[in-house]
């Protein structure tokens, strides 16, 4: 057909760019999602395929944050999980099987503050993505503030760090072994020219030791890994172990020359977090906390009793919630917020939260 609409026809995006077939994985995932909605098994949608632990971040403008995080960082919203309240919106975003939740900041909303108000972050969110080079280019083009450029690191990750519009700090990485097995070399232009030969050597041995078929994220690590900041990491390890029943992965412990612990990893339920000293990554919650961690445990009643007996400051009592979770909230000695939950019943979609 030739007529005055031809220029418009030529403007169809897939006539300009090669028309890739629709990713069958996307369709398969969306089909699963539809079928679980239809059969009602998606009830308690926020909990479906939810990892044992996921962070909640506070924003002054959570809708703008949602728009930014999906556009710049490629997160996908679980639309069926969204909750609209008079006091703001709660949204769940996912990347792979990792989940992060966002909500409005406020004293009465778990006392969570946007870094924009408090001037500091108290947690950094580490995310393993599937193509960190493409992720970096997209985030940069969309206006994310890059605070650490894309670099190959000696521990075998290629990573960068960015701030979102309200100042939450995000760390995006990919295993170098995965980049290699994907058949694409990391861009040389982004390689850190300052990287010492020693570091390169360590990095190469990290790559050599890795299984050729390693999966991203590395085995044992969740897709989204929360990094909490404590002034006194040693005391935090003791308290988290005693009160919340976490376990330290001592092989991940970094000790400074003066014997203080710089950072370590903690098992939480069947997931993992890292904790570390104040640094460019964040600060202890002196001026207000910017995040809360939501943790699924197998027996929240037992967990609650143990935490209370050990002296945890419970800020919300153990109770059943409309979204089908039984949970309680506590703060730790430096002020980080924790919610411990157990999913006890499925709630039909469309339930009035």
């Amino acid at each position, binding site marked *: 057909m030739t007529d005055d609409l031809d220029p418009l026809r030529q403007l169809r995006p897939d006539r300009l760019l090669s028309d890739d077939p629709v990713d069958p994985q996307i369709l398969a995932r969306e089909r699963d999602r539809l079928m679980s909605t239809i059969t009602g098994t998606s009830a308690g949608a926020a909990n479906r395929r939810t990892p044992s632990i996921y962070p909640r971040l506070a924003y002054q403008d959570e809708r703008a944050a949602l728009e930014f995080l999906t556009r710049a960082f490629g997160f996908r919203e679980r*639309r069926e999980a969204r909750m609209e309240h008079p006091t703001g919106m709660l949204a769940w975003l996912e990347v792979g099987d990792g989940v992060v939740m966002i909500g409005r900041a406020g004293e009465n909303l778990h006392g969570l503050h946007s870094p924009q108000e408090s001037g500091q972050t108290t947690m950094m969110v580490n995310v393993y993505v599937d193509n960190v080079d493409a992720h970096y280019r997209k985030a940069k083009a969309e206006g994310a503030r890059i605070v650490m450029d894309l670099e190959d690191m000696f521990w075998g990750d290629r990573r960068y760090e960015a701030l979102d519009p309200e100042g939450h700090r995000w760390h995006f990485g990919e295993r170098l072994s995965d980049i290699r097995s994907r058949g694409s070399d990391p861009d040389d232009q982004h390689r850190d020219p300052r990287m010492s030969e020693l570091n390169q050597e360590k990095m190469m041995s990290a790559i050599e030791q890795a299984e050729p078929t390693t999966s991203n994220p590395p085995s044992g690590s969740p897709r989204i890994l929360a990094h909490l900041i404590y002034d006194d990491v040693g005391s935090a390890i003791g308290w988290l172990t005693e009160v919340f029943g976490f376990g330290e992965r001592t092989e991940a412990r970094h000790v400074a020359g003066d014997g203080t612990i710089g950072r370590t990893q903690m098992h939480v339920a069947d997931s993992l977090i890292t904790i570390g000293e104040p640094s460019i990554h964040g600060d202890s919650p002196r001026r207000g906390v910017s995040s809360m961690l939501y943790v699924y445990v197998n027996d929240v009643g037992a967990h609650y009793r143990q935490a209370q007996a050990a002296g945890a400051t419970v800020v919300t009592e153990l109770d059943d919630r409309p979204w089908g979770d039984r949970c309680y909230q506590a703060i730790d000695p430096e002020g980080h917020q924790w919610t411990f939950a157990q999913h006890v019943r499925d709630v039909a979609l469309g339930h009035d939260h």
Partner: protein
Amino acid sequence: MDDSDGEVITRSLADPTAFGTLFDRYAAMLFRFFVRRVDPSAADGLLSDVFRIAFERRSTFDASRTTARPWLYGIATNVLAKHRRSEARRLRATAALAARRAFQDDPAERVAAAVDARELWPQLAEAIADLPAAERDALLLFAWEELSYDEIALALGVPVGTVRSRLNRGRGRLRELAPSSGEEPSTVSRAAQRGDCDP
């Protein structure tokens, strides 16, 4: 012999899982529709919305119809309504790409034509972005999705005569953009004055 869409939807009233067949038939088509119109990274979420809405409203589908294609395009068009800004961004980005390409592809002796093309594409994108949503939706269902007037009428829930007049208005504005007319700024301002007269 495959069941018609009407039969599938009727069956899904008693057996909801039968609705999966409709997804298998139309998901790729609708995914492409969204990728053309908005930021591709939003397409899977919008696709998910369309099928959830379609499922909830399946009892309103006229089961005597053999195809659900226009009905699904109609739902998809409604779902787009909240993404007008993203739509305008996508149009501008596509136009910028088309302009660059025209400039590169043209041999040296046709530089003048290439310069025209370089200006034409962004003007076209602005004109489309400035159209009232109802006209843009009809025009793009016709030019990009290749729906017939009847199918567009079904999709948008308006009489065929309305589709025809929307398309004519849209065409008229694009015609004004022809490089010889030289009146492109007035086209844009007229569109702006007109405002978005969506219901």
